[in-house]
């Protein structure tokens, strides 16, 4: 009995905080927009009994999903988000791997400090950190002043309000999510495996490709998903650092919801985003499962 209660707890949690909200959003996405509170119709009126439920049910349709295909804005936003997510995940991996590798090879007494340094940015509000990047990247910002001061450039660079600024912001923000799983994977790596590879005729570089990379693959996959999935729906960074041409689905969603007050279309956008993300999430879970199997 206690075991059932123990298992039931996380399931109830998921049910209440994920599945029920999901059903509500799904329902709204099938509704029509209306000048009312809440701004959609139909709403379920149980006081009319069976007929009320039938009315409510017949009022639901896939109109909003059809609408998403008619306006090129939406699929362009999805594609653009996908592109930004893929590229920034790749950059984060390229930046994060050497950091994680260096940490895992650092002397034992240094590791807690280095780990702390990776986590430290979380102690400051995310919004403040993104705003700080505005000050750094602006036309008269720190970066341009330093570069002009050093004589590297004569004209200030336009970085803020471009996709470059969005990439910088995303890589900066999501780096810890990449570094931590990579570090966890690399830290387990037994040095004698690399020595064995060298002993059997590998150069250091070759040993890295044949041993270190494959053995840290679980960390690479986990880190990449932890970056890719939230970046797909990222809204704050493209809004604050990106320009008018930075198209991301998170921004579109926000505008549908708050500027247009079109809850049903916004919900449909969210549901499609979820459907797109289900695919990598399932892959991620498969990967975890495989790891679990190979560990036992």
């Amino acid at each position, binding site marked *: 009995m206690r075991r059932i209660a123990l298992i039931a707890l996380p399931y109830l949690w998921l049910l209440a905080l994920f599945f029920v909200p999901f059903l509500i959003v799904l329902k709204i996405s099938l509704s029509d927009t209306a000048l009312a509170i809440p701004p959609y119709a139909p709403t379920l009126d149980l006081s009319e009994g069976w007929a009320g439920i039938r009315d409510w049910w017949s009022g639901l349709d896939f109109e909003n999903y059809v609408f998403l295909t008619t306006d090129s804005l939406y699929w362009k936003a999805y594609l653009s988000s996908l592109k930004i997510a893929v590229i920034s995940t790749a950059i984060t991996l390229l930046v994060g791997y050497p950091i994680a590798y260096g940490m895992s090879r650092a002397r034992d007494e240094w590791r807690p400090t280095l780990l702390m340094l990776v986590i430290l940015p979380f102690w400051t509000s995310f919004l403040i950190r993104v705003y700080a990047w505005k000050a750094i990247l602006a036309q008269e910002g720190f970066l341009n002043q330093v570069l002009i001061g050093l004589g590297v450039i004569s004209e200030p660079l336009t970085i803020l309000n471009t996709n470059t600024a969005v990439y910088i912001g995303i890589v900066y923000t999501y780096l810890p999510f990449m570094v931590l799983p990579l570090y966890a994977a690399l830290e387990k790596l*037994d040095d*004698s*495996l690399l*020595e*064995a*590879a*060298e*002993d*059997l*005729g*590998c*150069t250091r570089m*070759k040993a890295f490709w*044949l*041993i270190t990379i*494959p*053995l840290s693959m679980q960390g690479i996959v986990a880190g990449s998903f932890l970056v890719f999935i939230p970046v797909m729906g990222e809204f704050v960074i493209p809004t604050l650092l990106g320009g008018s041409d930075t198209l991301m689905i998170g921004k579109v969603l926000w505008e549908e919801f708050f500027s247009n007050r079109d809850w049903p279309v916004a919900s449909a956008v969210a549901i499609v985003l979820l459907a797109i993300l289900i695919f990598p999430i399932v892959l991620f879970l498969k990967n975890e499962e495989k790891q679990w199997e*190979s560990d036992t």
Partner: protein
Amino acid sequence: MAENPRKPKPPTDVFTPWEDPAAKPLIEFRNVTKRFGEFVAIDDLTIDIYEREFFALLGPSGCGKTTMMRMLAGFESPSAGEILLGGKSMVGIPPNERPVNMMFQSYALFPHLSVWDNIAFGLRRDKKSKSAIAARVDEMLRLTRLEQFARRKPHQISGGQRQRVALARSLAKAPKLLLLDEPLGALDRKLREETQFELMDIQEKTGTTFVIVTHDQEEAMTVASRIAVMEHGKVMQVDTPAKVYEMPNSVYVADFIGDVNLIEGVFSRPAPETCQITYDESEPPIHLDATPGIAEGARVTYAIRPEKIRVSADRPDDLANAAFGKIIDIGYLGDISTYHVELANGQMVKAAMTNSTRVSRREFTWDDEVWLSWRETAGVVLDH
């Protein structure tokens, strides 16, 4: 440690390149010193190892034996001196370019590769043809009796099988020299003993020179053609197992290898051909055969193995040395029993007797008074 007096190695005239001045050593350590900061791991060490030898580096942990092996593999380089392999200096040559392979203490099997791919790993680096690699891997699998495990991953096989994969992988490239770092440390006793003989068998079949690092003296005695006993970065003695055991050159070696009684006394020559050691006024001196090279009146240590001492109820007249004492303790080990006998002056002496009869009919028990006796040639005199 329990003493299993083993059969001596095959007659020494079969394979003794170290006694042949014309023989060219495969490995030469020339005045090699290795420092880690202030710590001296290897102290001015010179040693020769010959082709086809099964050479054991034996010593307690921290004696420098692993450092020596890592210098041979190329993972460490000497702070001073040089190491020659087949007459060529190995200074500055990285591990991947040395004709040396190593079997790691942890086995260091690649967890993401199958047994087959682990063994093929080194061969693939040599850009050999697919069929040549496959033939060699299959040969190694046969040699180590692993054929049916070829497709398994390292975590799906037992410890003993992993040990054989590690051996097969390090032998696959047919190295001139195979280094084995505590190769049997992770196996249980029974499997370890079996594997020791397997190792010797494989060494003989392949004709590879083996250098084994171990802290287990029994293992070194079993497998090695010669043993180097090490202590604090120095080699104390290099000799065949039988010589290291029967003729240790120092108190350290005598004490480290096997069980031994160490009796301190004063050396004297009452007559030209007789020598003796006086260790206590009240006890008769220990009679020795002619022992040249030790000065009259020198303080020496007399080392005698427990199994060289006979325990009897009556004083025997056929042996030169006899001492009277009381049994304080009996250690029953199955094949032998060790008697701890206290002499009249309080000196404790260990004597080992094989249990040729069953326990119920054993002759001696606690507090029995017994005679200990041994030959003139039974012990060794060690100079200080």
